[in-house]
């Protein structure tokens, strides 16, 4: 069973602000060296207006050096299970456009578990590496045999 953090963030403005701070604090754990080296800045993407506080996205960052972005979408939990998805995407064009920005998108209900998974995904991404991962025994774990971002879904209970 997952203990979700700020589950009412869409109804409670204080929870929403706390969620934003939570992601910003997580971002600082990604690695100061890489953030400076690749000139990562945040926020990058707008919800459309400052008064649109829908968590879509709740955090985003961009590196003009790598032409890479990160977009975190937070949604309300729908169950007591781990809820997280990630997928690769392109901004401003498609895969054939050299000017397009490669994006790592993560959508989750916030919990300490999903925050850890998100951090594990973001760390290689901000350093210019691929995002290796795999699902083993219901847990998302680094998978060094993979060399590309793949979409995944983890509807499983965390392993005991």
């Amino acid at each position, binding site marked *: 069973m997952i203990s979700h953090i700020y589950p009412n963030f869409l109804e409670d403005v204080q929870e929403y602000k706390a969620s934003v701070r939570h992601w910003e604090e997580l971002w600082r754990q990604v690695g100061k060296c890489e953030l400076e080296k690749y000139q990562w800045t945040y926020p990058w*993407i707008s919800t459309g*207006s400052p008064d649109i506080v829908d968590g*879509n996205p709740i955090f985003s960052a961009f590196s003009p050096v790598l032409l890479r972005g990160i977009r975190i979408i937070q949604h*309300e939990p729908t169950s007591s299970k781990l809820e997280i*998805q990630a997928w690769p*995407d392109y901004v401003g064009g498609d895969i054939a456009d050299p000017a397009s920005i490669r994006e790592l998108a993560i959508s989750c209900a916030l919990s300490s578990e999903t925050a850890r998974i998100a951090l594990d995904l973001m760390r290689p991404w901000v350093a210019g590496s691929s995002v290796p991962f795999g699902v083993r025994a219901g847990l998302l774990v680094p998978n060094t045999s993979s060399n590309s971002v793949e979409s995944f879904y983890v509807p499983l209970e965390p392993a005991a």
Partner: protein
Amino acid sequence: MEHGGRIQAQGGNIEESESWDQGTPLLAITAYEYLENLKIKIGRREADLRSVGFDQAARYIDRMHARGGTDPAPPIIRKSYPQPPRPDQRRVDIEVSRGRAFVPEPRRETE
């Protein structure tokens, strides 16, 4: 051009889009047409599977339309629907990469 973006249907081995690149902000009514065009492009079955995503995307456009469109000079706007996402990642994405979008139709001059 000053105003650009796209609305996409992605996931489920589908990638279709309706894009704009123009000198004037995208009208909300045109964005609704793009959503309908996308449904036709991907077919009824795939559109039905994305029905919540299409509905949420339309509601976002409604909301922007009601407030006069997206802000004049925001950074990039990216939205993915539905939220929470589908397990199979079938989704509808909105991207406003330049300028403004989802603005109301200009009022016609009356005598």
